[in-house]
């Protein structure tokens, strides 16, 4: 049964203190540290309870292989994008925050479109996301941070329901950065995200007029009044984090387009294979996997 205690913490007066109490090592690592990209621990602490509720109670995310993310040093998390509101990133952040032996923030590279939205733009920056440019990614990796990339880009978010869990071809730029900065790539396959907002149709004409990358029609989206249209379906999630892929190439190889494309394809194919495997084992979206029953 779902416990809803996580939602109660949304009303705490001092979210920062609550975060310190709940997760001291994360707090101590980032409290009072200046960040050039505008990370703000206060805003992070304020929105954390909602995502914690989604992570623990609503989606009941089951993360496998979290130990594959290194405790220190730069690394690149690469995954399949999903859901109209890209919640998969938030779920990885929650997993890193709550279940990892060395809690770290994950800096996701966010597409330009989100930075045209007032309000959202500030929130994105303050919770630790970064505008997706090669310079930003390089800088973050040099600082030894975890960088999250969804190489499918915004197209991956706007997949229709019939295309769910079918990976769109990866943009190979992330491999170039990884080779140039000599960091490992960690593939992450996420099942669940594509069903929280089943996107039946994309209305292209309307999307162009309102300057959105796509205009989805879901069971709730344009129909229900404001907060309700963003309520996702309670689908069980599972994430599979693979062992880091060490790219043993010298940094000069970053300009070898053939090699870069091949590595990007290999990682894409690995993620797709994991997705197929996870889907094959799943009982149904709302009940999850067979081995869930064994858990107390």
């Amino acid at each position: 049964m779902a416990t809803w205690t996580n939602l109660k913490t949304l009303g705490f007066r001092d979210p920062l203190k609550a975060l310190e109490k709940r997760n001291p090592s994360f707090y101590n690592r980032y409290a009072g540290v200046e960040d050039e990209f505008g990370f703000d621990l206060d805003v992070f602490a304020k929105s954390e309870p909602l995502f914690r509720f989604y992570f623990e109670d609503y989606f009941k995310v089951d993360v496998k292989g979290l130990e594959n993310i290194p405790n220190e040093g730069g690394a690149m998390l690469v995954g399949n994008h999903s859901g109209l509101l890209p919640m998969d990133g938030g779920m990885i952040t929650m997993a890193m925050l709550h279940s990892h032996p060395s809690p770290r923030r994950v800096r996701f590279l966010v597409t330009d479109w989100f930075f045209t939205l007032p309000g959202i733009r500030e929130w994105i920056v303050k919770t630790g996301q970064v505008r997706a440019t090669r310079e930003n990614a390089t800088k973050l990796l040099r600082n030894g941070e975890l960088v999250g990339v969804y190489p499918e880009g915004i197209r991956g978010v706007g997949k229709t329901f019939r295309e769910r869990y079918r990976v769109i071809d990866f943009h190979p730029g992330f491999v170039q950065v990884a080779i140039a900065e000599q960091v490992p790539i960690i593939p992450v396959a996420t099942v669940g995200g594509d069903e929280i907002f089943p996107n039946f149709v994309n209305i292209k004409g309307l999307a162009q007029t309102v300057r959105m990358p796509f205009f989805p029609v879901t069971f709730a989206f344009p129909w229900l009044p404001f907060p309700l249209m963003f309520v996702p379906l309670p689908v069980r999630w599972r994430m599979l984090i693979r062992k880091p892929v060490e790219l043993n190439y010298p940094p000069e190889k970053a300009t070898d387009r053939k090699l870069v494309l091949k590595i990007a394809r290999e990682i894409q194919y690995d993620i797709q294979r994991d997705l197929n495997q996870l889907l094959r084992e799943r009982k149904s979206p709302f009940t999850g996997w067979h081995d869930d029953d064994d858990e107390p």
Partner: protein
Amino acid sequence: MPSFAVCYRDYVRTALKADRHFGFDLRTVARIEPCISFLYKEWWKVEFDGLNMIPSTGPALIVGNRAGFVPWPAFMLMYALMANKSGPRRLSIVGDLDWVKDERLYNLLVQVGFVPWSSANLKHLFAKGEIVAAFPEGLSATCKPFADRYRMLEFDWTRLLPAVEEGIPIYPLATIGCEESVPTIANLDNLAKFLEMPAFPVTPFFPWFPFPFNLGSLPVRWRMKLLKNLTYPRASKNRDKIEDTAKNQSRFIEGDIQAELNRMLRARIKGN
């Protein structure tokens, strides 16, 4: 027979010269030709891309995704290669035939060009310069549930080992339409075990109708696409290295086919 010889003159010429070690029989092909050409042209309206990539002489291995209990994609590929006006080729299909106990069925399959899978048989075919098709998902893919359509099972990499050893070019083949034409509703495991079959599918046609009609299918449009062959280093004598290459190749080919299936499905949804 005469009309077949006229229509497929070049094919007959090459097939008569081809290796008949495994029991290939041109007369059987001529007999089933009206049936498969009807399926190819009228019923499924197969669109085949990339046929010109197949070399007109010399060995090659085509690796595809598998669907349905009856190996229709193999038949369609066979027909496409046969009806190819510029340099038709005869196709041999390697697969597991051990479970086929019925002699008439076995003979039919062998005469059409099926070959029981074994490393030695594959090497024999390559040495004769034949084109071979393999479906390395194995028999477990014959009864994929409809919800898992166009999601590949893991390839059995040992199936590619003989080709990698000999340095034969491997062409990935992606087929869409095949899984919707004969949708699998259920798989009756116990009955399959009892009948000593690899699977017992329940389709809208299969156990319900009398014989020829239970092989029926829905008129779905098919699309088949041959992809560029992968280049891999010519294998050395080192056994471990050969196996590693085969493993990598099979993973990459599987991913290639899956990615192409995704692309084709997306194109179909968008309606082009």
